[in-house]
């Protein structure tokens, strides 16, 4: 697919091209692959050192996994507790069953404030509900304030990673975007200068726009508090300077108690950015008289989470604390970057979360976008067994497709069905081997290898040879040996 045909990157799972197609497009972009590999290597290097130093790392993962599982199993109770405590502290809690309702709730709240502009801290959840374009269409400008998000907003790009969303963009690309959109003619591509440009650009917005939208890393049931973890300080700006704050959070973000942050915070920064602790963590409870926004709203979002919650094997997907360690460890992501996944949740977590949020009606290629190597599970701070969920989702997709008779003529499906039939009987299996061996001779060249195969085989021989089938296979050899020894 040419760039012209491919068009803009599409992160709407309903319309994004399937993973193999999207990935092929990304694989053709050497700049992207270089940027992605560089970013990943930096984070992984730092993470590796800190994990090695943390002698109780595995115990922390176990505790985090249990805490998150416990919350999910008792989510109703903890959500109600959070709502009660947050309300008692002066917050207003709203519930949105789906993306459309969340957008409309937020719009109403902004209209109540006569807000024409709003400042935002990066929140993947707001991208999930496609908030910004909706606000724009309703006459409200949303200004992103994270450096990466500004780069993407000004450059009209899409995020490719959930912690370092612009990791696919290099410094000269950033320079070009800032120079053009901020009107700075003599801007160099030095990251310090670029960052200063962003700082100046945003300062006035922080000081003058009275309404902000944030996400949440954790909602604390015990106290009704919210915790936000960040590096740049734009979060603190948005959380304390405006008059009105709206926090959008998925219902799965709840943790039972304030003290549980002692586990989550030790895991999160190490996993996400390879630091012992991120520069700034903010915690607030409802409204604090004389300090920060005097109007505070929380919008709790379901949008498919309660369906995932109902499924015993898939429920663990909701344990996610959005650290992105999985995509940093993923050998597939390393090659394709995030856009190939056609979702704002890319990488291993995206491969299981996205199709499930879509009720398995879209993004069905994502569970197959994995070699099942297990590196993600190994690094996940809350021990989500991503390979297990991937395999489960693959079975669901295939069962869907069986019913739809979609794949009757798919050569791979035909091949797997035939193989299953053959594996059910040794006699059939052996006969098929004999047939296969003779058929393979047609494709075996003088060097004893097959260089070009038809149909599904062509996918193999695109880049690899396949050695010709030996004239005697193992079970024949064994049988012969048995006869000879008699």
């Amino acid at each position, binding site marked *: 697919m040419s760039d012209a045909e491919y068009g803009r990157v599409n992160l709407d799972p309903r319309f994004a091209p399937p993973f193999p197609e999207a990935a092929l497009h990304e694989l053709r972009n050497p700049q992207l692959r270089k940027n992605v590999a560089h970013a990943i290597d930096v984070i992984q290097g730092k993470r590796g050192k800190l994990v090695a130093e943390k002698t109780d790392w595995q115990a922390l993962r176990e505790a985090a996994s249990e805490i998150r599982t416990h919350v999910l199993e008792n989510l109703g109770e903890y959500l109600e507790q959070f709502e009660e405590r947050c309300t008692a502290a002066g917050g207003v809690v709203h519930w949105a069953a789906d993306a459309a309702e969340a957008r409309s709730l937020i719009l109403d709240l902004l209209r109540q404030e006569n807000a024409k502009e709003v400042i935002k801290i990066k929140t993947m959840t707001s991208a999930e509900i496609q908030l910004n374009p909706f606000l724009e269409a309703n006459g409200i400008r949303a200004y992103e304030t994270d450096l990466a998000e500004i780069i993407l907003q000004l450059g009209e790009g899409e995020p490719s990673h959930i912690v370092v969303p612009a990791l696919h963009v290099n410094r000269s690309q950033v320079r070009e975007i800032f120079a053009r959109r901020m009107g700075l003619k003599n801007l160099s591509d030095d990251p310090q200068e670029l960052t200063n440009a962003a700082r100046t650009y945003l300062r006035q917005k922080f000081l003058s726009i009275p309404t902000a939208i944030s996400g949440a890393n954790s909602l604390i049931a015990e106290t009704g508090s919210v915790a936000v973890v960040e590096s740049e300080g734009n979060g603190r700006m948005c959380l304390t300077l405006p008059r009105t704050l709206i926090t959008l959070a998925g219902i799965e973000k709840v943790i039972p108690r304030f003290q549980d942050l002692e586990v989550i915070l030790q895991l999160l920064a190490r996993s996400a950015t390879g630091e012992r602790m991120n520069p700034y963590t903010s915690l607030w409870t409802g409204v604090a008289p004389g300090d920060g926004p005097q109007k505070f709203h929380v919008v709790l979002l379901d949008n498919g989470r309660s369906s995932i919650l109902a499924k015993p094997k898939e429920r663990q997907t909701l344990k996610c604390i959005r650290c992105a360690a999985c995509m940093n460890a993923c050998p597939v992501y390393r090659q394709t970057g995030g856009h190939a996944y056609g979702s704002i949740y890319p990488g291993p977590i995206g491969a299981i979360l996205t199709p499930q949020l879509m009720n398995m009606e879209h993004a069905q290629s994502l569970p197959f976008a994995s*070699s099942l190597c297990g590196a993600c599970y190994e690094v996940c701070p809350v021990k989500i067994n991503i390979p297990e969920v991937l395999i489960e989702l693959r079975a669901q997709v295939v069962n869907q497709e069986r019913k739809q008779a979609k794949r009757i003529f798919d050569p*791979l499906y035909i091949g797997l069905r035939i193989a299953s039939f053959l594996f059910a009987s040794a006699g059939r299996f052996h006969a098929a081997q004999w047939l296969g061996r003779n058929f393979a001779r047609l494709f075996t060249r003088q060097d004893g290898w097959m260089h070009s195969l038809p149909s599904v085989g062509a996918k193999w021989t695109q880049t690899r040879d396949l050695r010709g089938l030996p004239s*005697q296979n193992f*079970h024949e*050899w064994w049988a012969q040996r048995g006869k000879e020894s008699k």
Partner: protein
Amino acid sequence: MRASLFITCYNDILFPETGRAVVRLLERLGVALEFNPRQTCCGQMHANSGFRREAFAQARRFVQIYRDTEFVVVPSSSCVAMIRDQYPGLFEELGNDALRKQFAALLPRVYELSEFLIDRLGVEDVGSCFPHRVAYHASCHGVRVLQLGERPYRLLAKVRGLELVPIPNAERCCGFGGTFSVKNAEVSSAMLAAKLQDVVSTRAEYCTALDNSCLMHLGGAMHREYVGMKTIHLAEILASTEADYERFPVEGTR
């Protein structure tokens, strides 16, 4: 000691020399090896491709064939991972209690080759000789699911004449991933190209592993690209003895 060899479907057809090497090796170590000709496949390919119904049938068959065996030895870490990691869930879902119990009793008796040598036979030095520069590729299932750890390295350390060279980024997936290699052939090939760079940088003569699946993928690219390296299953290195070097080249060179 008696043990039954589960050769695996793909080794039977594509890499019989690995099977012959396992036989040679284990008999040399005094194991009375059996081979049940009714065996076919463990079901991994189907389970991982979403064909769970079909995988059930294969899993059931495996248990029926091996339930009375003393030990089952498997020269493929991904197949053992399937049996250890996924069979429990499959039998749970099948709801057949008798089968689940039979499997539970069988499971501790199923060994990957390096596990069988180190844990069961208690040997590291298997009397082998393979005077070549060798790089060991640690397959993902072996590393992460079976947690083989030091086992293959301990075996390689005792092979006479063998010079082991570490592969950079050793624990990164080669990109095979079963049907992933054809369903996502381009990404698989990109991962393969990256892995090949790391393997080739070792300047080894041979790349070895406990899984012919990875080796087929790596070896296929090596052959296509005229890379001066061959692949060989660890069983064939371990089966090779000094006597082989006196009379003829090591079996299994490709």
